[in-house]
């Protein structure tokens, strides 16, 4: 059996070699189609992936509606006001909880020839690190006590540590800021969640232009309440439902600008937490702080990402376009292969007359499709590597993520086989239907 297929393979190779131009054309068309598909599928896969695969189903994003304006939203705002976020954080009803907001933080490196620069920073609480499995190179997170004690400490990213301390263990060193310095307690390993899920919001207002969700993770992490003091005036609000009276100290302002993430280890706990959010909202309305009807949400991480339609619509469009392109290539190659096989009708007629079964002709023709498909796949793989290089040259936040990936190889083989069957099946079947008598009679 193996031998006979080896023989078919040899026949197929010979047939490919006999019509080099038409074969090259077919391989090129399949290669272009497969290359486009692999490139876009790789990018799509990278961008639509689960940034926290081991626990994303246990991570939740609570939302309440703290606004008091006459305009009532259908969906609660994407962020909370300070009071609600801190209340919920303090209640410790979840297994883990972290409040967070971000700001640009001015770093003033000491030493000659250095200039001040802004680093993206995240102001959060202790649980952020264990909840999101943030990997540490040196040291570790600050303690729970540091949160409320407004400890002057910080965790920094690998890239900032490389820049300021040459990659050495900087735990215990001071990080000089515009208003005083903070002590470094931890240095992260390379950490590149994609998307940067804990800062994803307002995706449905972005008209599909969501590549900003794939920026690199913050470089400095400060305890939330420490950051409130150190970097006051640099925080951005999502929206204000009344004109704020103070844009530096946002704590008591009618603005949504703080997010809360919680970890809830069981479905029962998630249900209980949802109930707690409803109770909290009802209670706040009873107190007169909330005025809108209770409208709470508790989406898990992947639901939140889907709600924000994180994958940029350009990437969606390119993926769809690539599939359509592959389909066109397949139909056309099917046509070319069919004409090529039928041109050799008399050869198959002779083989059939000499005793070859229809199945044998069919197998032989399918082998030819396979050879073309696999050669096309090989070309497609090369084109995909080039395609990813082109994606990396684009001015988009996810450009650095578009790296060739070993899974592409499996994808190529899969697509090549699929393509071969798709464009080869029908021509092979047609060729196997050729009646021997008629073909031998023909000139």
């Amino acid at each position: 059996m193996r031998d006979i297929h080896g023989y078919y393979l040899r026949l197929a190779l010979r047939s490919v070699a006999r019509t080099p131009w038409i074969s090259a054309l077919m391989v090129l068309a399949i290669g272009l189609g497969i290359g486009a598909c692999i490139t876009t599928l790789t990018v799509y896969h990278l961008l639509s992936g689960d940034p926290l695969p081991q626990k994303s189903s246990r991570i939740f994003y609570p939302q309440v509606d703290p606004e008091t304006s006459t305009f009532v939203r259908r969906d609660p705002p994407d962020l909370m006001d300070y009071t609600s976020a801190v209340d919920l954080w303090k209640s410790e009803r979840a297994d883990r909880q972290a409040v967070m907001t971000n700001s640009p933080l001015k770093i003033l490196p000491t030493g000659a020839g250095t200039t001040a620069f802004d680093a993206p920073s995240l102001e959060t609480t202790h649980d952020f690190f264990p909840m999101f499995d943030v990997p540490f190179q040196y040291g570790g997170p600050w303690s729970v006590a540091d949160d409320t004690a407004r400890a002057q400490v910080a965790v920094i990213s690998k890239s900032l540590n490389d820049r300021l301390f040459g990659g050495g263990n900087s735990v215990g060193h001071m990080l000089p800021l515009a208003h005083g310095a903070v002590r470094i307690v931890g240095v992260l390993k390379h950490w590149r969640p994609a998307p940067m899920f804990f800062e994803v919001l307002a995706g449905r207002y972005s008209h599909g232009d969501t590549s900003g969700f794939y920026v690199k993770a913050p470089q400095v992490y400060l305890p939330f309440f420490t950051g409130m003091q150190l970097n006051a005036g640099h925080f951005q609000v999502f929206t204000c439902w009344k004109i704020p009276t103070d844009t530096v100290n946002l704590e008591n302002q009618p603005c949504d600008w703080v997010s809360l993430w919680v970890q809830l280890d069981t479905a029962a706990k998630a249900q209980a937490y949802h109930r707690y959010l409803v109770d909290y909202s009802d209670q706040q309305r009873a107190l007169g702080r909330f005025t809108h009807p209770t409208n709470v949400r508790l989406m898990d991480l992947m639901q939140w990402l889907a709600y924000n339609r994180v994958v940029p619509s350009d990437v969606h469009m390119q993926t769809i376009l690539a599939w359509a392109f592959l389909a066109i290539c397949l139909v056309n190659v099917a046509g070319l292969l069919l004409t090529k096989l039928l041109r050799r009708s008399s050869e198959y007629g002779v083989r059939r007359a000499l005793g070859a079964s229809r199945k044998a002709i069919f197998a032989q023709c399918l082998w030819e499709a396979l050879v073309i498909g696999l050669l096309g796949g090989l070309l497609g793989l090369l084109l995909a590597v080039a395609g990813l290089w082109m994606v990396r040259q684009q001015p988009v936040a996810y450009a650095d993520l578009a790296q060739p990936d070993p899974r592409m190889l499996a994808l190529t083989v899969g697509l090549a086989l699929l393509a071969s069957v798709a464009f080869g099946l029908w021509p092979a079947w047609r060729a196997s239907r050729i009646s021997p008598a008629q073909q031998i009679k023909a000139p």
Partner: protein
Amino acid sequence: MQPMLKTFRRHRLMPTLVVMQIALATAILCNALSLLQQRLAPLLVHDGVAANQVILISHIYNTTGKGWSGAQIQTGYAELRAIPGVIAVSAGSPLPMVSGWYDSDSIFSSNGKHKANAAIYVGSNLVNALGLKLVAGRNFSPSELVDATMQNEGGLNTDAPVILTHAIAQRLFPDTNPLGQQVRVGSKHPSYHTVVGVVGHLLRNDLNSANQPAVGNVLLVPGRFIDFPAIEYAVRADPNALPAVLKSIPVALRRAFPSNDATAHSRPRIATFEAARAAFFHGRRAAVWLLSSVTLVVLIVTLIGIMGLTGFWVQQRTRQIGVRRALGARRVDILRYFQTENLLLATAGIALGCAAAIGINVWLMAHYAVPRLPIVYLPIGAVALWLLGQLAVLGPALRAARVPPTTAMRAA
């Protein structure tokens, strides 16, 4: 016609394949062209800004929470204006190409009959500083400048006059002279604004898919900024002095907005309009290249595919051609026969393809931020595929026409 249809019935394989190829190509071509046009349109619209004269300065942020005072913004203006070679300066916010934030709203004509979405640019002297061409009316007079603060939403809660671009003026006042007419901004602002001028072109800075048909809709408001946390400037200079002006700007800005102040943490960005435009459109240009190469390759692949199939099918019928020739058909009859045959198949494919194109578009609209496929793409796609089909059939048909009548007799 009759024998042709009979042929299709007898040999279903080849015509089916050709129809499928053309249908797929039509469906994809229509959608790809529509996407292409969407990305390309803003690149082709005249931006209205004077070429090689304008420098944009953005990202002058004040994060103390108070915002830059009116005096500071005025000092910035005076420092920039004093640079030799500078013709005009305007504080503005937002500005085309550079602003990271948007201000847009529905604009209503005073009679309430028409509305259109537009970007709103507020500035003290934008018409001169951007070198915009007035096509009707006049520029704002200095006495018309209003205070633009965060509280009055950048001057929108005043009765300041406005200047419209030609694009939005036509939408709001299709059958009247826009000059002297009044507009209202959004549903929240009660105040009316009198139109005093119309500029030829200007691009909005929020070019997302929703604003696609309205890329040139801009409303200019004469505002003098007070207590604004983010300020931008447009500077117009003599083209010959531009490089020198570019060099002098950082010094001028430092004098007006002291950057050693630890709180003013963002470095202003300074770029010529052309550079800012190139950067702004980079992604769009890449998409245009991608879509046009895909379109081109689709056409080439289809062309080769149809050529291969038709060539083979003609070859298969060599004997019939010989018979027809022997029975008196002229060469041109044979040629016309295959051309007509291709036309019929292409028409069937195009009809299927157009239906599929609409289907694909409806599906895309339901799932992604894709606008409706303009109907005009269907005839465009149809004509393209008809021509492509005729081009593909020409070679095989000519070969068929050259078949000598004796072939019929020679054959077995």
